[in-house]
């Protein structure tokens, strides 16, 4: 059954070479934990991506119940966590995954740094990786406000005060992020929501694609 469908598509689109380009390549011995257990350090990048996939999936499902509105946001989070089946699990995945993705990304960065894997010809991939790091931090920051509880509001107050302290353009940056010069409220919440679920994920997917294309093109750096 599956083979027949595969053959039908393959006959028309010749997908075998595409598939081979994406997936069919040997894992070098020095990055295979089955050969050298210490090679597990090479897993952190993949784990970061794995958790990112979970974050995207659980986030998509959470928006089925969440509303980015100051009157209803907290109520909707309370409802989806306590009244909807598996709500605690799905919100828990997104909550803990957010921290875990930062941890994995940090370990991945450490590995690349201490192995010197960022050196020529892989400087561009390091740059893209750092951009991904910033996008991830921004995702964590914007997502933090969305439950609209006291912790969220005061954390955002701190963020905005830091942005405000930038010389000359600080107040403008603060207003741009918060949507209002003085209030942390309705417009802040909708902005953070839009940035969290549309703008940053779009940027993240583009950067991750570039990251992966470069690693396939250049291969993993050699053994130490």
């Amino acid at each position, binding site marked *: 059954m599956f083979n027949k469908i595969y053959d039908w598509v393959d006959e028309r689109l010749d997908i075998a070479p595409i598939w081979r380009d994406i997936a069919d390549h040997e894992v070098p011995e020095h990055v295979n934990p089955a050969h050298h257990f210490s090679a597990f350090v090479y897993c952190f990048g993949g784990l970061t991506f794995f958790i990112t996939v979970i974050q995207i999936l*659980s986030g998509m499902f959470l928006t*089925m119940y969440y509303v980015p509105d100051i009157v*209803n946001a907290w*109520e909707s989070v309370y409802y989806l966590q306590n*009244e*909807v*089946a*598996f709500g605690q699990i*799905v919100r828990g995945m997104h909550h803990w995954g957010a921290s875990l993705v930062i941890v994995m990304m940090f370990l991945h960065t450490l590995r690349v740094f201490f192995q010197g894997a960022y050196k020529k010809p892989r400087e561009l991939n390091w740059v893209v990786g750092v951009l991904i790091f910033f996008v991830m931090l921004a995702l964590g920051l914007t997502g933090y406000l969305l439950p609209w509880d006291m912790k969220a509001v005061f954390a955002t107050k701190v963020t905005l005060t830091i942005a405000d302290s930038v010389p000359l353009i600080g107040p403008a940056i603060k207003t741009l992020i918060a949507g209002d010069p003085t209030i942390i409220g309705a417009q802040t919440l909708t902005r953070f929501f839009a940035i969290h679920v549309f703008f940053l994920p779009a940027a993240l997917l583009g950067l991750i694609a570039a990251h992966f294309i470069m690693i396939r093109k250049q291969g993993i750096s050699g053994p130490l």
Partner: protein
Amino acid sequence: MSKRNVSRRQFLNYTLTGVGGFMAAGILMPMVRFAIDPVLKASASGGYVATSQKVSELTAEPIRVDYTFDQIDGWYESQVTNTAWVYKADDGKIVALSPVCKHLGCTVAWNTDKEHPEQFFCPCHMGRYTKDGVNVPGTPPIKPLDVYETQEKDGILYLGLLKPHEGA
């Protein structure tokens, strides 16, 4: 033991597919159950709702009766006002009809079409119903108006669940 040998490649394929499938299921199962929860939630069937209509004042002429009740919509609770068309039938029984047209859900009213008096009329697509709520053949609705369960308590009209029209 059968003589068919499982190759190392096959064995690894099976175990990887199995473990991978198990992990994917573990991730997706809570999310899917989370998403389909509204379908599986038992619908809270409300009891009778009091109107402000005195039963003794009902006549054979259908009148519009508004009633208000508390509605819980997920995290949002509010007071909702709905309408029924109520009259006393010839046998003395109270008839309370839903104003929701069975064609596409517009709101019908009594006696508002001058060419067809003494009928329920839906202005959206000229749907019509006779006084007992039965759709007039040749007009868009294909079913009669739904009927409320009714109750009388202390001379006041109470409305219950909507039911499909019996007869017709």
